[in-house]
Structure formats: C-alpha cells, structure tokens
C-alpha cells in the first residue's frame, strides 16, 4: 500500500539497483567480472553461489563498505535509484542513509532498544528537534514493522545487546527503517540464528517487501527459494543466471546453475 502511495507521488525507478560492467579487484585479485544486473524496485532478490563467488563482495560494493579496506579498485557503475553511487558528487553519508545494511552477526549497539532505533534518526536529523512523542512514534512504528513491538514494548530501556539473537537481528533491521532507506542489503542475515529464529526473520523480510528493495546474500538455497522473488546465481565472480526465483530453481537455463542447486558443488 505504501509502495503504491510512493508510486503516485513521484516517478519511481523500475530498477532500484543497476550495475553495468562492474569489475572489482582486491589488490591484484579480481573478484568481480563485468557484472551487469538490474534489480527490481521493491522486490526481494537473493544472491546465491558457492563461497568465494563474489556475492558478498557485490553486496558490499552497493553501499561502498568495500572501499574502507583501502586496496579495493572498482570499475563500472552501480546506479542506485538511477544515480551512480561512485560519482564524485555523491556524499557517502547519504549513501549509507539510503542503503541500509544487515550483517551476518546481529550487531545492536550497547545502548537501550529505544536508543538503538533512534540512533540513525538522530544522526541524520541533527537540526530538527523531534519531540518525545515523535520519537515514541518512530520507535513504535519501526518495532512494529519488524514484528518486535509486542515483545519489547514494556522494556524499551533494556540494552539491545541483552535480547536473544533473533530479536537482536530484528532490532538491527528495525533501526534502519526510521531514516527511510530505499534499499536494504542483508549479508546472510539468518546464519547466526537457530531454525526458529531463521523462520521469524524470513517472515519479517517477506513482510518488508514492496516497501523496500531487499538484496539478500544467502548460503541457504532453501531460504533463497522461500524468501525471495528473484534470484541471482553467481560463480567465480560472474553472474551466471538471474531469474524469477521459482524459475531458477525449477527450470534453470544454465548447466552450472542446475549443478549448484542440485548440490553437485558449492
């Protein structure tokens, strides 16, 4: 519903993320080869492939964390909402605001649940003094979106680090929402969780589709199949196949894809 409201007020890019001729080197090692991708706006797209295939590298170049390493060199474009985020006039802080990231290990800050949610909001709205009731609203709406509100509403002053892993991961997703990002990147968001937690977080990710474009790296093919609408298979730094998830798993076009999803390697 929110997505349609957005669509009516402003023209929305068909593709949230587009890469063209993306090549990436760690020092002299080339990790990505001519990656051309169009990732649909408002959809959940999963990235699968064996370890070392470049899926995490690709994910991490979409919010420019890779460059923190210092020895990374990138050629080509990554357009997010039709703007190349590697252009010189792009402000990194705005990139990080528009493109949220969720990590493998939940990393809530050692402050209260409430402050965790408000952290990003406070950083990006320094001059706008928001009232206590505004803040309460932000906290409530973010926690409701991640299906955590009912569990923690009576203990918002508890430290975020004291929650269970599943709740921590939900909190980490929730704290991205108040600054209204357009893209959420998730790097194996469930791999530190038990099956029950995994199911809960997958359910939540599914709930968020439409409102956010979600790109999710996973080792777990069942998860890619359950929790994504499109799926990209990568191998040795190249994109092998990009299809609707159901098609990719049922009728893969490439032999490598078929071999991988049938568990012949990876």
């Amino acid at each position: 519903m929110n997505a349609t409201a957005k669509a009516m007020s402003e023209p929305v890019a068909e593709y949230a993320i587009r890469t063209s001729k993306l090549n990436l080197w760690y020092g002299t090692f080339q990790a990505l080869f001519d990656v051309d991708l169009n990732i649909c706006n408002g959809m959940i797209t999963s990235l699968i492939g064996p370890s070392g295939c470049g899926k995490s590298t690709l994910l991490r170049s979409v919010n420019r964390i890779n460059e923190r390493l210092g020895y990374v060199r990138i050629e080509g474009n990554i357009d997010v909402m039709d703007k190349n985020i590697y252009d010189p006039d792009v402000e990194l802080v705005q990139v990080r605001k528009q493109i949220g990231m969720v990590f493998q290990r939940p990393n809530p800050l050692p402050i209260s649940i409430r402050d965790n949610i408000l952290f990003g909001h406070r950083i990006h709205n320094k001059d706008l003094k928001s009232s206590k009731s505004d803040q309460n609203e932000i906290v409530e709406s973010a926690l409701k979106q991640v299906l955590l509100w009912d569990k923690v509403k009576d203990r918002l002053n508890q430290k975020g680090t004291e929650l269970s892993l599943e709740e921590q991961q939900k909190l980490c997703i929730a704290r991205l929402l108040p600054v209204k990002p357009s893209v959420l990147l998730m790097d194996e968001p469930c791999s530190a969780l038990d099956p029950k937690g995994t199911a809960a977080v997958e359910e939540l990710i599914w709930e968020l589709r439409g409102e956010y474009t979600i790109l999710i790296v996973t080792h777990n093919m069942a998860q890619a199949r359950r929790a994504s609408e499109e799926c990209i298979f990568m191998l040795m730094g190249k994109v092998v196949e990009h299809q609707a998830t159901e098609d990719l798993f049922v009728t893969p076009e490439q032999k490598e894809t078929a071999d991988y999803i049938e568990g012949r390697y990876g």
Partner: protein
Amino acid sequence: MFAESALNIRNKRVQNLFRILFLMMTVLLIIPVVIILATLVAKGGSIISIDFLFTDPTNGMTAGGIFPALLGTVWIVAVALLASVPLGVAAAIYLNEYAGDNWFTRIIQLAIINLAGVPSIVHALFGVGAFVIFFGFGTSILAASLTLAIMTLPVVIVSTRESLRAVPQAFREACWNMGATRWQTIRRVVLPNAVSGILTGVILEVSRTTGETAPIMFTGAAFFLPFLPQGVFDQTMALSLHLFVVATQVPGVPDNLPFGVALVLIAMVLLMNSISIAFRMYLRGKKKW
C-alpha cells in the same frame, strides 16, 4: 588396560616438580611486598596521626608533620594530569580510530615506545632545559608537572588505546553503516564504552606519578619551604623528595619519621590503585555485550 605405566609416573613427577617450582617463584614475588609493608608499618606506624598529616615540619625537619609535602604532591600530580590526560587520550583516539597503518603512524608508535623507555633522570634534565629555562617557567609546579606529564604520556596513550581496542569493531561497523561519521561513532559509541578503561589507566598513572622523585627534584620540588604553594609558578615540597631528604640529607631525624613518610606515600599509591581496581570491577559488572 587403563593401569598406570612407568612412563605415566615419570611424566607426572616431572609435571609436579615444575608446578612446585613455578609456585615457589610466585610466592617469592610476594615476599618483598610483604616485607616492605610490614617494615613500614612496624617502624613508621607509630608516627602516623592526623597532626602528622596536617602540620608543617619543625626543628629543621626533624619533627612535626608533612603537610606542605603532601599538599605539594597533590598539586604536582593534579597539574600533571591536566596536561597529560587530554593530550594522551586525544593522541590515542587519533591513533586507534582515525590513523591508518602507514609509515607516519609507525613512526609515532616507535616514538611512544621510546618515550616510555627514557630513564626518568633524562626526563628530569629535559624538563630543566625545556620548561625551567627555555619556556622560562623557573623551578615551579608547572615545570615539574609538565616534566611528569611527558614522562607518563606513553602510559596514558597505551592504556587508552587498549580500552579503545576493547570496544568491539562490530559496534563501529554498525554506526558507520548507518552513515555516522567517525566522530559521531567515537562520541556516541566508542567513548562511552571505553571510558571505564580510560579512567582506570588514568588512575594508575596518578599512582605512578605520585612516587616519582628524579623528574621533579630539578624542576619544581624544593628541599624545604616554609610556606605553601599559591599557584603553579611556585615551588613546592613533595612527598617523594621529602622522603629522600629526611632519610639521607638531614642529621638527627628520629627513626620513625622517614618510615612514616614512606608509609604515607605508599598508602596514597595503594589507595589509588584500589580505587582504580574497584572502579573497574564496578564498571565491568555493568557492561554487557
């Protein structure tokens, strides 16, 4: 099948031998501490009183109290802290949070390590040259404190860096990926979690500074002064130097006086160490991640 073999017995015997050897070494370590404390209490305990702490020395320092020296030490330590803590903490934050691993930071690291290795008497002479003469502070609390500050700077930097390093990298990553700048990250997340460690380091530094003699005896501490310091440009007496003076330089001092001074000095140091340990335990207990 599971019976003890001759080899098992031999190995166990060797193992016991080493255990006892290392235990003895550990016990050996405690002996000097115990003897020092026991001697000080036995020989100097009798002189300790409120009067001793809060009156001036009399009769050419052979009687009376130690108030000017006690107060002087507090002055010197306080001013030294004011100089070294902001400088050291700032340097540590730069090195740990901003600087990359390049030739520049390596040179700074090397300088810090070397600074820590400079003998205190060399610091003293540097202090005379730099602060007393070049900057024209004269022999004063300021010159003495700055000399001490430079001497303790490496300790502050190293202990602050340790505390900063103890803050998990994941917290920084979390902030950066929400678009926080380095400074926002440091102020909102890193420092609040490192402050306990930093304070502990600072208190330990204080306790070291309290006992230093060489760096202050040429730069600001006086043999005897009949008045209390009024500001940082005054000279002052100091406990450590006072101990040296009454123990070796003045004839006719009763036996229990120097021991009493030493006891006060060591009590100050131990008190501050205990505060620092208690503080650390308290803050660690509150920390959860």
